[in-house]
């Protein structure tokens, strides 16, 4: 146990470290902690002049009786679910395929191409997808026409739009997301493979007994952490790609909060929407991180 005096001495000794932390501390208080306190707006009626009036759970009652809110919640869960379900295995497959490439230059080429879309904004990707999915001249519809079928207006068809969201997400992220698995594969000790091949294990057996277990550990961690972000179905993507003809299948919680808050200026209600999402997100992240730690496959930090 250190006494108060010892603590004071210790603080004085490392005072320069504290000075260096001042800018970051001010930044976090202003730009992160004040907005966290700002969620109290969801319990208040917003007034431009004069103080806000406390109204308790009024906006939450409104929220939980709004069909549009439930629609956005359902869409969020469906879109997130589809992305995890379909998108999750692809980076693993890419990493495995990259790992078995022999030619170094070819490997480098593949890597530099498939990481690239990760660095493009969703505004750009929306432009690219609007171009390639255009029913008039888009690449995909040109191919569909080659097979003698009618072009599909993907971006404005409620039946296809969620598919567009999933595919464009895969197109953008699966290359970059494969990095985690590539790193896991590189971390496997080469000696294990050598020992196995001396014992007469085939390449297939080596994959099954050495590579796969290591990959599965990483996959479990990534999967669990993905679930932690389940409430975020991809604001930037949906916000840019969505249009009026697909709003019923695409409107997620974030885009709903944006419309209510910044287009209709219903600040308190939109804050309540955000707080609902934030609290569920917090619970998911804490629980999933605990689980990930338990599995001993690593954790967020």
């Amino acid at each position, binding site marked *: 146990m250190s006494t108060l005096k010892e603590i004071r001495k*210790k*603080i004085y000794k490392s005072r*320069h*470290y504290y000075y*260096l*932390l001042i*800018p*970051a501390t001010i*930044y*976090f208080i*202003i*730009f*992160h902690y004040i*907005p966290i306190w*700002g969620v109290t*707006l969801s319990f208040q009626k917003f007034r431009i002049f004069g103080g806000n009036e406390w109204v308790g759970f009024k906006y939450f009652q409104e929220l939980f009786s709004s069909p549009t809110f439930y629609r956005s919640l359902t869409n969020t869960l469906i879109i997130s679910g589809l992305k995890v379900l379909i998108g999750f295995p692809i980076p693993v497959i890419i990493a495995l*395929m*990259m790992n*078995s*490439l*022999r*030619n170094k230059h070819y490997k480098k080429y*593949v*890597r*530099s*191409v*498939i*990481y*690239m879309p990760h*660095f*493009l*904004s*969703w*505004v*750009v990707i*929306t*432009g690219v997808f*609007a*171009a*390639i999915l*255009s029913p008039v*001249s888009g*690449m995909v519809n040109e191919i569909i026409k080659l097979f003698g079928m009618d072009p599909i207006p993907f971006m404005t068809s409620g039946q296809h739009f969620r598919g567009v969201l999933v595919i464009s997400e895969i197109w953008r992220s699966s290359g970059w997301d494969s990095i*985690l698995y590539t790193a896991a594969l590189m971390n496997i000790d080469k000696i294990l493979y050598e020992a196995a091949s001396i014992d007469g294990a085939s390449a297939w057996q080596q994959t099954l007994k050495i590579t796969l277990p290591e990959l599965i550990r990483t996959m479990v961690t990534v999967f669990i952490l993905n679930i932690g972000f389940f409430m975020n179905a991809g604001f*930037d993507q949906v*916000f*840019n790609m969505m249009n009026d003809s697909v709003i019923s299948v695409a409107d997620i919680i*974030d885009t709903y*909060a944006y419309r209510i808050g*910044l287009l209709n200026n219903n600040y308190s209600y*939109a*804050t309540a*929407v*955000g*707080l609902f999402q*934030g609290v569920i997100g*917090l619970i998911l*992240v804490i629980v999933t991180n605990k689980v990930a730690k338990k599995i001993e496959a690593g954790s*967020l*930090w």
Partner: protein
Amino acid sequence: MKKRIGPWQIINAIILLVVTVTTLYPFLNLLAVSLTDVKYVSDMSGLSILPKEPTLKYYQVLLSAPGVQKAFLNSVFITVVATAINMFLTIITAYVLARGNFWGKKLYIIFLIIPMLFNPGLIPNYMLIRNLGLINSYWSVILPGAINVYYLMLLRNIFNGIPKSTFEAAEIDGANHFTMIWKVAVPLAKPGVITISLFYAIYHWNDYFKPLIYINDPAKWPLQVLLRQFIVDADKTSLFGPLQAILYSEGNSGLPFRGLQSSIILITVIPILCLYPLLLKYFSSDIMSGANKG
């Protein structure tokens, strides 16, 4: 140990070739459309990657449009200033967290992590910027992302990897924290520092949302907002100004939407493609995996 190349290896290589083509082809098509003469643009197939009667007409028109020029400069300004602030704050804070053995360190790390766990949502952030009087100011875009905790922890772990003896030797030579940061830590962590600054820079270049909601004056918009106005709302006014927008409107003397769309997308992407080789050079997966340790 050299393995023989079997049929699986070839199939594997071919599938990956298809994957890369799927990634690149849309851009090659956009490039071809953007270089095709105005007369032929509407007939261009989405599968074509060869321009017809190549011309730089779209690029000339767009790059000389005052709206585009201003937006380009705005983007450069925001990216450079914001990245400089990012790096200054991230470096000094990461240094303290890596080197400092001070009272309350664990508590401070919790202080940094809480905002990562709980997102208060759009409106509280908007209200903050409004209350600070930053609406319509470049600072509304620059300041909110001044430190990314993930990159901060990444850099802390990279600094942790520098041998303690290096710092101790500098300390004996009478180095203060300032010298230790800029003369010892940063040069020794060069690949990590460059990678992180590129991540920050690309983030700012790509940011469209903060300027969209915080900046009302179109003269202060960065390129991404202009691109969004054009692609999502088919708005030519912000590119050319109201008068020219009528001039360039679809019709006898107008420029077709598809050509403008392809070239403005590429203009927005090219700066990133210029930084990209640098990123590939310095980035390695151990830099990323470092974030999970410690």
